[in-house]
């Protein structure tokens, strides 16, 4: 008779705390929660704008509360963390070949930062004008 009895180890719910790599991955994915919150607040603002000036000003007022400012700073940190980690992974999802050679990872990453800077600048300038 076979004495085989393969043992399956259970995956504990804190698996992502056991290795820094997994923790960073969860932070990257978890950033979506704060970015969702930020988007909802922004969408709420658009809704308040449709209700008239008084409603919109009340929303603007609420944004200046300490809680709102903290939330937005945390959301910004997470958004930046997500962007930076995503840019560093971007070369894995791009298959660019020029003259029979694969385009260097550094060029792809730098390209992302340049695009990021140009688009951010464009948004800021268009708000000011």
């Amino acid at each position, binding site marked *: 008779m076979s*004495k*085989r*009895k*393969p*043992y*399956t*180890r259970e*995956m504990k719910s804190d*698996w*992502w705390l*056991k*290795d820094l*790599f*997994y923790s960073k*991955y969860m932070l990257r*994915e978890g950033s979506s929660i704060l970015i969702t919150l930020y988007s909802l607040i922004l969408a709420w603002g658009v809704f308040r704008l449709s209700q008239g000036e008084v409603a919109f000003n009340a929303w603007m007022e609420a944004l200046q509360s300490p809680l709102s400012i903290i939330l937005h700073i945390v959301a910004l940190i997470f958004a930046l963390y997500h962007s930076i980690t995503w840019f560093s*992974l971007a*070369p*894995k*999802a791009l*298959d660019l*070949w020029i003259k*029979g*050679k*694969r385009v260097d990872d550094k060029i792809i990453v730098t390209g992302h930062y340049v695009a990021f800077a140009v688009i951010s600048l464009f948004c800021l300038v268009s708000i000011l004008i």
Partner: protein
Amino acid sequence: MSQAINMTDEIIEIEILRYRPEQDEKPFPQVFEIPYTPDLSILEALQYIKDHLDSTISFRWSCRMAICGSCGLMVNGAPKLGCKAFLRDYYPKKVKLEALANFPIERDLVVVMDDFIKKLEEVKAYLIPEVKNKPLSDGPYQQTPEQLEKYRQFSMCINCGLCYSACPQYALDNKFIGPAALTLLARYNRDGRDAGTAERMKIVNQEEGVWGCTFVGYCSVVCPKGVDPAAAIQLLKVESSKDYLIGMFKPE
């Protein structure tokens, strides 16, 4: 060899997660103390333990030079090849060894790899030429260095299974085809001599195919052969998306 090892006074502790199916309900840790030398690999440390301290300890190995892919195990929680990890990188701390994560333990450091092997078999990892039964007299299928470069790194896999141990998605749901098998699939899809892409895309497009991957990326970090499974899978996701879009406009 073992006599030379005994010359040293320094001792290192090796903790091994033991599991003997005929007598144990569940795995348990056992600590061994062995003489430390900086050039000793984890695999050699295991061989020392088996030769001198406890002959019942079980582990797999063959080539001792990181090409057979047999000696994968968890070293302090990270998947490594026993022959390619060295005590000097852990000394004087204790080294904790455990069977490769995400696979069932057969005995001690030996895992059941059947599921991984089955997946390797499923991905049609062979050339499917466009012209069937090409006569031998026509000569071999030729290829330029550039065509080779498109898939070369994805062909370096030694099937050690370290990437499956590094993949939480495979751990959560082992229906996911997983890093090495998808990389091997990409290797053939990217081969200029192959015409089997359409057949393999059916495997790629499934939920258990590339879309089971959430781009954790640890597979590419632990690979002992410098293969980049995360990249292979992300590139396949691009192909899968293209396949989907084209399929929307093309009547069956």
